[in-house]
């Protein structure tokens, strides 16, 4: 009869055989203690702890031990497995933990079943809100300290009360699911995994501001999210939770989906409204804000997916419960899409105030390659990079802003020593240049000029004055652009300049890219001593710049070489050198 299960994982970086070895020793020890039939040993693929030697998790006791040595096995068997007592000096104390409020149902319930959602407290908040009345709802949301998760961090309760207090008997609620930041997919995941939570948030918001119609603005590249939200709306309709006289009350509200064509600027609220109206998706000056003059000229409230997904649990558990989580000015949790050179690419949800180091190393597991961490990018094309020495900063709206980045919607891209900061700046700026709608000159022309300067730097054709030019144009774009896209487009350039100016200077003064990323500054040569004369490089070269044969070996004609790096990638023997 099996009474306990022990999960085993060697979390030492680079270790491949540690888990198996420990498992075998442990198995023998159990047999010796005549416990082989009572204890189940399992080698885990991943135990959620990193860089802590051998880690064990004992179930059902839920005890985790870290840095376990072979000589600890006896104690573990005697104290914990036989008697269920923990061993203090082996206990693992997590420095950081995830707290799943927004993602609480994601991966737990069937997103296509309204009954499953209801079984997990679903629509109870809506029912309570309808009884409490709009003023109480707004008071609760205001007291909770919830701020918009779409990037701006505007207090949600204040936005609702402004929209409510604008006179008018026709108002609109919009859920912003445009999610255009490269690397960010938190909203998609919430819509796919728990669509009813966002619908419930929409209905509560609509009730609070006095709307009778709501729109989900979802980008067309999210077909599964669209399908599940539509299915969820239909199910809610069938239950009378969307439509006329919801829960038998006087409140009626309909929900519809509008598709976006995947333009980044259409995530900006005024452009989004124009897009729903069937116009070209370009921003217009604010004020008037949407809360005064929004969709079809009527008072409109726009909230992000994650903001709305927070609403039902705040109403259910109360504002005091929510405002206990997080920091002084940033309450609750934040979902991040952690991607790039990180071991565990995925979504994590942590309380506000968790440090970047804990997010990247404790939960993310550090760099995937084991190479040196260089920086983490937050806030997407409107944000910036944060270098290693600032990793202990607790994440909240204000702290990230002070560091020259922003919270943004939650994209977080981890970079290691192979990433060149000039190249990164170029990537984000190119994104904004591509996505600029072209309506205002600072964004349209400024972005293009900055990109040209960056191109020159990455080719070694720049001077130090160009750094000043970059800063000057950046300032003009920040001050004079019409919408957030242009106002923040320079941030990735400014923040890389702020923390990695040395790297820029190295490109300019020594025509060298320290990360060996900017191919124009590299030279490729074949090391004859390592070359096996296989000819793969010559075949991979798109310019036929590699000549030779299997007898005499190969050489690269530097005059014809375009520095694409194909030969470097192709060579299995490391014989192509990059300098």
């Amino acid at each position, binding site marked *: 009869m099996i009474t306990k299960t022990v999960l085993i994982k060697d979390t030492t970086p680079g270790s491949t055989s540690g888990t198996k070895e420990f498992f075998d020793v442990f198995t023998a020890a159990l047999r010796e203690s005549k416990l082989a039939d009572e204890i189940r040993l399992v080698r885990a*693929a991943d135990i959620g702890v990193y860089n802590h030697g051998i880690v064990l998790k004992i179930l059902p006791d839920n005890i985790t031990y870290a840095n376990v040595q072979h000589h600890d096995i006896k104690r573990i068997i005697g104290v914990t497995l036989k008697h269920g007592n923990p061993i203090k000096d082996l206990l693992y104390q*997590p420095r950081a933990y995830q707290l*799943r409020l927004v993602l*609480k149902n994601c991966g737990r319930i*069937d997103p296509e079943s309204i009954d499953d959602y209801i*079984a997990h407290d679903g629509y109870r908040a809506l029912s309570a809100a309808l009884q409490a009345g709009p003023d109480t709802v707004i008071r609760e949301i205001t007291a909770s300290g919830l701020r918009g998760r779409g990037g701006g961090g505007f207090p949600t309760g204040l936005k609702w009360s402004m929209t409510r207090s604008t006179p008018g008997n026709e108002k609109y609620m919009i859920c912003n699911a445009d999610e255009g930041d490269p690397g960010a997919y938190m909203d998609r995941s919430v819509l796919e*995994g728990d669509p009813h939570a966002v619908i419930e948030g929409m209905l509560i918001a609509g009730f609070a501001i006095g709307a009778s119609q709501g729109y989900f603005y979802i980008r067309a590249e999210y077909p*599964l999210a669209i399908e599940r939200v539509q299915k969820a709306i239909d199910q809610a309709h069938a239950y009378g939770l969307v439509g006329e006289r919801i829960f038998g009350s006087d409140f009626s509200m309909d929900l519809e989906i509008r598709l976006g064509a995947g333009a980044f600027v259409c995530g900006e609220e005024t452009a989004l409204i124009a897009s729903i109206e069937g116009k070209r998706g370009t921003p217009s000056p604010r004020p008037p804000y949407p809360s005064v003059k929004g969709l079809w000229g009527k008072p409109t409230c726009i909230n992000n997916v994650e903001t709305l997904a927070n609403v039902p649990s705040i109403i259910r558990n109360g504002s005091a419960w929510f405002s206990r989580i997080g920091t002084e000015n940033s309450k609750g949790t934040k979902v991040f899409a952690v991607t790039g050179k990180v071991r*565990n690419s*995925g979504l994590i949800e942590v309380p506000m105030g968790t440090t970047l180091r804990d997010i990247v190393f404790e939960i993310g597991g550090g760099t995937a390659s084991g190479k040196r961490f260089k920086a983490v990018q937050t806030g997407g094309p409107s944000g910036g990079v944060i270098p290693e020495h600032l990793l202990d900063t607790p994440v909240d709206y204000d702290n990230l802003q002070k560091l020259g980045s922003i919270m943004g919607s939650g994209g977080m891209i981890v970079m290691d020593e192979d990433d060149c900061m000039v190249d990164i700046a170029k990537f984000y700026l190119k994104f904004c240049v591509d996505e600029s709608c072209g309506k205002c000159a600072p964004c349209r022309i400024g972005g293009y000029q900055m990109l040209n300067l960056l191109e020159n730097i990455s080719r070694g054709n720049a001077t130090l004055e160009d750094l000043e030019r970059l800063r000057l144009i950046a300032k003009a774009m920040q001050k004079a652009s019409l919408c957030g896209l242009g106002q923040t487009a320079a941030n990735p350039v400014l923040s890389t300049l702020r923390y990695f100016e040395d790297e820029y200077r190295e490109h300019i003064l020594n025509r060298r890219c320290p990360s060996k990323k900017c191919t124009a500054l590299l030279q490729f040569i074949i090391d004859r001593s390592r070359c096996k004369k296989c000819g793969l490089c010559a075949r991979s070269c798109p310019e036929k710049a590699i000549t030779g044969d299997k007898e005499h070996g190969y050489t690269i004609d530097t005059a014809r070489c375009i520095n694409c790096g194909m030969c470097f990638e192709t060579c299995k023997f490391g014989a192509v050198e990059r300098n």
Partner: protein
Amino acid sequence: MAALTADDLAAIASRIHDQNASWIRVGMSTCGIAAGAERVYAALEDELQRQGAGVQLKKCGCLGMCAAEPLVEVNIAGMPRVIYCRVDEACARDIVRGHVCGGKLLQDYIIDMQSEDAS
């Protein structure tokens, strides 16, 4: 159908909670599907039927560990509830034969995460 009342919510909830205690869940959001979750789901469905195992097979969203998809969570009465990662069709069949029918956890596939759930 008539509009729901607050009491109906409780009735629906208790009906769902009374259902089969043993279940298997497959992560079927974009990340899971891209990694092959649909094939895994089909293999589980087929193998459960072959073995005649009375276990409920369900779809769910993304647990957040996207790099480790496809993820399959298994809850069989009397055994620890675990999540298997990077599951392929062969592994899916092993889950049914070994874990569901044989009472054994699979080696080298379990993934665990440190998290706290709030109410």
